[in-house]
C-alpha cells in the first residue's frame, strides 16, 4: 500500500473511532450535558472540591473527633483572671476555648450542625417557594382569567414577604417563636421563600408561551400535565442554581442570627455562628476562637457560591456553544 493510502486509512479509522465515541454519547439529556460542561469549568471544580470536603467533614468527622465537644475537661488550664487560654498544641490542634473545651472537636461537630441548618433552611424555602411560584406560574400561564386572579393573590402575598427587610423578618419570626435552633431554621427558610417563588413563576410564565407548549396543547394534552411534564422541567434550571447560592446565604444568615444571640440558646451545642458569638467575649486575648468559625463560614459560603455560579453558566442556554 502506498504511503498516501496508509495515511488515508489511518484517518478513516480515526474518524470511525470518533463517530463511535459520539454514538456512545447518545441518549443524553440537557442535564447531563450541563454536567459535562460543569466538569470542564475550573471554578466548578474548586467549588465542588470545597463543598465535598466540607460535607465529608460534616458527615464523617464527628465520628472521629478526638474529644467530646461538650466536655469542659481542660477548664483548669484556662485562667479567666490572667486571660490565659491555651493555644494550639499537639494535644489540642486548634487549642482550647474559654470554657475549657477542645476547639478542634467543636469545629468539626459545628460543621455538621451548620450544614444541617443550612440545608434544612434552604429546603424549607425551596419547597414552599416552589409550591407558591409553581402554582402561580401555572395559573398565570395556562389558567386563563381565573388563573391570573389566583396568581395575583399569591404574588401579592409573596410581595408582602419580599417588602420586609429579610433580617428584620427573620428577627421578628425568632422573637415571636422564641430563640431555638428550629426557629432559626424556619426563620431563614421563610425569608428565602419569595426568591424561589418569584424565580420559578417568572421562569414558568416565560416557558408557557413557548412553541412546544402550544404544540402540546394542539395534541390535547391536559393543562395539569403540560404544567408538570413540559413547563416545570424547563423552568427548573434557574431554581436549582438559586438553591445552591441560597445554601451559602442561609449559612451566613443562620450565623448572623446566632451572632445576634437569636440562635440556639444552648451554647454548648457548637454551631459556627454561635461559636463566633461566644468567642466575642474573649476576642481581645484569644482572637483565634473567632477566626476559626469565621473562616469556616467564609470558605463554605465561597464553595457554594463558586459552584452555584458555575452551574448558572453551565445551564444558561445563551452561553452554550
Amino acid at each position, binding site marked *: 500500500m502506498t504511503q498516501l493510502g496508509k495515511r488515508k486509512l489511518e484517518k478513516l479509522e480515526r474518524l470511525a473511532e470518533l463517530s463511535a465515541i459520539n454514538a456512545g454519547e*447518545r*441518549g*443524553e*439529556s*440537557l*442535564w447531563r450535558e450541563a454536567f459535562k460542561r460543569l466538569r470542564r469549568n475550573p471554578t466548578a471544580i474548586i467549588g465542588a472540591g470545597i463543598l465535598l470536603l466540607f460535607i465529608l467533614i460534616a458527615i464523617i468527622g464527628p465520628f472521629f473527633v478526638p474529644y467530646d465537644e461538650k466536655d469542659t475537661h481542660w477548664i483548669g488550664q484556662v485562667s479567666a483572671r490572667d486571660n490565659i487560654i491555651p493555644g494550639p498544641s499537639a494535644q489540642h490542634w486548634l487549642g482550647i476555648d474559654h470554657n475549657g473545651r477542645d476547639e478542634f472537636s467543636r469545629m468539626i461537630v459545628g460543621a455538621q450542625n451548620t450544614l444541617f441548618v443550612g440545608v434544612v433552611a434552604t429546603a424549607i424555602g425551596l419547597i414552599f417557594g416552589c409550591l407558591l411560584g409553581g402554582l402561580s406560574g401555572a395559573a398565570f400561564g395556562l389558567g*386563563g*382569567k381565573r388563573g391570573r386572579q389566583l396568581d395575583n393573590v399569591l404574588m401579592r402575598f409573596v410581595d408582602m414577604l419580599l417588602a420586609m427587610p429579610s433580617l428584620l423578618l427573620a428577627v421578628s419570626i425568632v422573637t415571636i417563636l422564641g430563640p431555638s435552633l428550629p426557629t432559626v431554621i424556619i426563620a431563614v427558610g421563610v425569608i428565602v421563600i419569595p426568591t424561589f417563588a418569584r424565580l420559578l413563576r417568572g421562569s414558568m410564565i416565560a416557558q408557557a408561551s*413557548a*412553541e*412546544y407548549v*402550544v*404544540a*402540546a*396543547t*394542539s*395534541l*390535547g*394534552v*391536559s*393543562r395539569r*400535565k403540560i404544567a408538570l*411534564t*413540559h413547563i416545570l*422541567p*424547563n423552568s427548573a434550571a434557574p431554581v436549582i442554581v438559586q438553591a445552591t447560592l441560597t445554601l451559602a446565604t442561609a449559612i451566613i444568615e443562620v450565623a448572623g442570627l446566632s451572632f445576634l444571640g437569636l440562635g440556639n440558646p444552648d451554647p454548648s451545642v457548637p454551631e459556627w455562628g454561635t461559636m463566633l458569638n461566644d468567642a466575642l467575649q474573649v476576642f481581645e486575648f484569644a482572637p483565634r476562637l473567632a477566626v476559626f468559625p469565621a473562616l469556616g463560614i467564609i470558605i463554605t459560603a465561597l464553595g457554594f457560591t463558586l459552584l452555584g455560579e458555575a452551574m448558572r453558566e453551565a445551564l444558561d442556554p445563551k452561553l452554550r456553544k
Partner: protein
Amino acid sequence: MSLLDVQELSVVFTQRGREDVKAVDGVSFRVGAGEIVGVVGESGCGKSVTALALMGLLPEKGVVVKGRAEFDGMDLLALDQRTMRDLRGRELGMIFQDPLSSLNPVVPIGKQVTEVLTRHRGMANDVATKEAELLLDRVGIPDPRRRLKEYPHQLSGGMRQRALIAMAVACKPRVLIADEPTTALDVTIQAQILELLKELVHEDGTALIMITHDLGVVAGLCDTINVLYAGKVVESAPRKPLFATPNHPYTRGLLGSIPRLDSVRGEPLNPIPGSVRDLLPWAEGCAFAPRCERVIETCIEATPELLGGPHKYRCVNPVLGQSAGPEHLLEQE
C-alpha cells in the same frame, strides 16, 4: 360532503389604544375526507392565524374570532375549551413549522409521543410505548426503539419533523392542519416529508389543510388552493386551473416571482413590488391595489367580491387567458 366547512372566518386582534388588526377577514373553504386543501400567501397574510383559530389555540385575551367552522355537526369556533381539548389530538391534529421549538427539549421523544396515546386512546404506558415505536416506524424514522429514548436535539431536522407528524397523527385525526411543515427543512427532506403527508392522507382518509408560502409545495400536493392576501381569499381554484390560468394579479405575481431554470441568465427576477404592509384596508377597495400593476379606477372604489364558479377570484380587472407562469411546477408530481 365536506368534513370541515369553514365559513366567513374572521379574526380581529384588539389592543387598547391601538387600532384593531383584522388578521383574517371572512375566509371560507371546505375540506373533504382524503382531500388536501392549500392555503397560500406571503408572511403576515393570516395563514397561521387561520390555523390557530381553527384549533382554538389563539389567546382568549384581545382576540375576537367570528364565523363558523363546522366539523361533525359542531362549530369548532363556538366550542368551550374543555371540549376543544378533547378534540385536539384526537379529531384535529396540527403540525407546526419549526420542529425544534415545537418539541420539548428536556423530555425524550418517546414520552412526548406516548403522552397523546395515553391521553386520547387510554393506553397503559407499556402498550403506548409499543404503539409509539410503530408510529415512529410508520413516519419513517429508522431504529425507532432507540429514538424513543432520545431527546429532540439529538435528532436531525427531518427526523424531528417526522416525530412531530407522528405525534399529530397518533390518534388518526380526521382533520390535519399542517402549518408550513417544510419551511425549516432543506429541499431533499421537504420532498420526503410531503410524500409522507400524502401517504398518510391517502391511507387514513384524513382531510389535510396545507398552509404554506411555497407554491412548489402546493403544486405537488393540493387538490384545491386558496390564495390569501391581507386576510381575504383572493383566488380559490382547483390546482390545475390555478396554475394554468391564474386570474388574480397577485396569484400571477406569486407564480411569476419564482425563479426559473429556463430563463436567460442575468435576466432580472420578477418580484411583486412592495410588501404586505403597503395595503389598503379592504373596506376601501382592493387591498392589493397599491402593489398591483393592473390597478384601475374601480379597484379603489369598492371591495371586490369573490366571484366565479369552481375557479373563484376577487378582482375587477383580472388577467384572463393563459399564464406565463411556471406550469412546470405541476410536473413535479
